[in-house]
């Protein structure tokens, strides 16, 4: 499984907050996603109704998942394709490697796939003498940097153009060192030229899948660059990496969810390229892959079915919850320490790697609720974060000081008179300390907060006191 630093969340955050480049990238470019989505949403009056239908489609699929999986598999075979089931990342990697070996592959091109990250495929291919080349521009950049994506759909969102320029100069040493790369289009043009040859020379093309259609045995990819299409139509072999919850019943159902996907992700009405692939080359086909393989990965997803966490399997990986999350926008995606960052990552990661390995993540939330508000699949993310916190508490995963603190708070909260007295004293003391400024630079036991920002001081009265005064 992919290298993890989920347990180091706090250290990761401290580093992220002190990283000027990251902070610049996040504050400059993060908010653009929000404006784009708002615009797309306002232009489509039916948007919220489509979200309801999208949710219902996936709920129906999850309730009948066994039948849909069987049907899908039969349809893929009917169309001449192959399905490889994998319970674990190990099995998935082995299946991919075997297909590549049979094809005598030296180099594989890759479209963007989060499952590839989840199973840490590139490392495995490299160790076995096969060169993987990421072709999505963002993925290509982070591959050059030996990093993980920091965002589900914008893997290099944490970087600035001068960082990309430096990487291109470091790696593309066959090009004129005096070339001008100060503008973004020059960087894109260079990547286009370098990758064009890779597409043409690759032996195998590997893509992800946004959806799998049971009706027809079809996989769908959605891109803007066209890289996924060049990846899958030029080599002899196309491998699709998918997880079992990607199933939808029909073309119509896929269409409905596609209508909310791009709008939620990039604010586009529709992505530039939406591609439906079913099996390999047909008689008379002059191009396209000869072989078509689908890897169907579980990796812990079945353990979520039938639990209070099942709704997370509706996720279509649009990234809207990341874009709208105040925590994500402050610390970036790498701080989350594994493959899936942001609010949905904080829900998914504990399910896939175990809460004991990710106990900080459900706490990386202000519970502002925007993630749920913008989720096209209406996933109740805050509710599930709370469930994880409960699990964390039940399993005694928090540090002793935190459990003590909670115990003390519970003791007070159950004794209203004592609670009111104590909070009144605290409010007065803090208010006196902040006299004239309204803010506190340091508070005992709260350095975790005050190291990065001031604490707004109470006005001198508690909520209960104010409530009493103002109630008619």
């Amino acid at each position: 499984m992919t290298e993890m630093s989920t347990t180091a969340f706090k250290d990761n955050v401290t580093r992220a907050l002190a990283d000027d480049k990251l902070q610049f990238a996040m504050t400059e470019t993060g908010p653009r996603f929000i404006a784009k989505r708002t615009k797309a949403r306002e232009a489509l009056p039916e948007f919220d109704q489509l979200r309801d239908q999208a949710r219902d489609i996936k709920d129906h699929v999850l309730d009948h998942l066994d039948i849909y999986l069987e049907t899908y598999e039969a349809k893929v075979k009917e169309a001449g394709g192959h399905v490889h089931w994998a319970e674990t990342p190990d099995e998935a990697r082995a299946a991919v490697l075997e297909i590549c070996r049979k094809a005598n592959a030296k180099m594989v091109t890759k479209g963007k796939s989060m499952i590839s990250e989840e199973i840490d495929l590139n490392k495995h291919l490299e160790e076995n003498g096969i060169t993987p080349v990421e072709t999505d521009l963002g993925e290509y950049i982070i591959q050059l940097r030996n990093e993980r994506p920091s965002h589900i759909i914008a893997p290099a969102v944490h970087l600035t153009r001068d960082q990309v320029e430096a990487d291109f100069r470091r790696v593309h040493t066959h090009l004129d060192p005096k070339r001008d790369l100060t503008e973004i289009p020059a960087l894109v043009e260079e990547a286009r030229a370098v990758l064009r040859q890779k597409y043409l020379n690759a032996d195998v093309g590997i893509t992800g899948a946004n959806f799998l259609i049971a009706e027809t045995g079809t996989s769908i990819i959605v891109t803007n660059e066209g890289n996924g299409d060049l990846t899958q139509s030029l080599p002899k072999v196309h491998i699709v990496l998918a997880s079992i919850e990607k199933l939808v019943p029909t073309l119509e159902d896929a269409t409905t969810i596609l209508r909310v996907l791009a709008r939620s992700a990039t604010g586009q009405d529709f992505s530039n390229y939406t591609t439906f692939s079913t099996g390999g080359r047909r008689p008379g086909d002059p191009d396209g892959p000869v072989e078509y393989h689908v890897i169907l990965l579980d990796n812990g997803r079945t353990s979520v079915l039938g639990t209070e966490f099942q709704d997370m399997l509706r996720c279509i990986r649009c990234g809207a919850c990341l874009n709208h999350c105040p925590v994500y926008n402050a610390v970036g995606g790498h701080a989350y320490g594994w493959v899936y960052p942001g609010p949905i990552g904080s829900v998914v990661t504990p399910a896939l790697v175990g809460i004991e390995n990710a106990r900080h993540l459900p706490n990386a939330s202000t519970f502002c609720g925007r993630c749920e508000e913008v989720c096209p699949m209406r996933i109740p993310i805050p509710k599930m974060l709370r469930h994880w916190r409960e699990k964390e508490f039940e399993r005694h995963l928090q540090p002793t000081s935190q459990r003590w603190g909670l115990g003390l708070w519970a003791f007070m909260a159950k004794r209203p008179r004592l609670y009111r007295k104590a909070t009144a004293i605290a409010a007065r003391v803090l208010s006196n300390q902040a006299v004239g400024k309204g803010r506190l630079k340091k508070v005992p036991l709260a350095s975790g907060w005050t190291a990065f920002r001031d604490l707004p001081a109470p006005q001198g009265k508690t909520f209960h006191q104010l409530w009493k005064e103002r109630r008619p």
Partner: protein
Amino acid sequence: MSAREMILGRVRARIPRGPEGARREAVERRLAEHPRNLIPQRGQGDIEHRIRVFTEMMLAVGGTVEVIDDINEVPHHVAVYLRDGNLPARVRRGADPLLARLPWHRGGTLEVVEGPAVDEDRASVTHAFAGIAESGTIVQISGADNPTTLNFLPEAHIVVLESAALFASYEEAWTKLRSLMGEGIMPRTVNMISGPSRTADIEQTIVRPAHGPKNMHVIIVR
């Protein structure tokens, strides 16, 4: 036990299960009937409306559109488009019968070659299976008539779209596809294309092209 059986076994053990027959029937019915869900109003209307919305949406994503009345004028418009774009007067197409029938000599010096795309091709012309007004989208299906690589390798992609195939929504294209292929059967590849290739992966700044065509030009034949 195989991974397949393990996974299916776990799914069955965990999901709420009513009578098995009823569950299967629910799935089979949905797949056989493939009911349409909500379809947005945006694209709905007569052909003039559909052309208007399609054009608006295609322009918004960086493509271009022209509307002509006579299909035999296509070669001329292709030649003019290439000339105006400073591209060589050479275009690649597939075996599509409609494209094959066109009077290509009317394109003047225009050279027309047939087959799947190769790296050197600068321009291609394809015959669209359908157009979708709702989002300014072209639908292409794979095969010798319009090889998939024509949609991606050349830097200029010219598309001929007959107005009879310009639908309001994707759903109508699915209906047309089922009547061509049969229920539950797809061509190897169906490409929905909305404008030329783009990326916003560096600083959220939109740049065209990324890896695919730089220009997409749709000729709607009324």
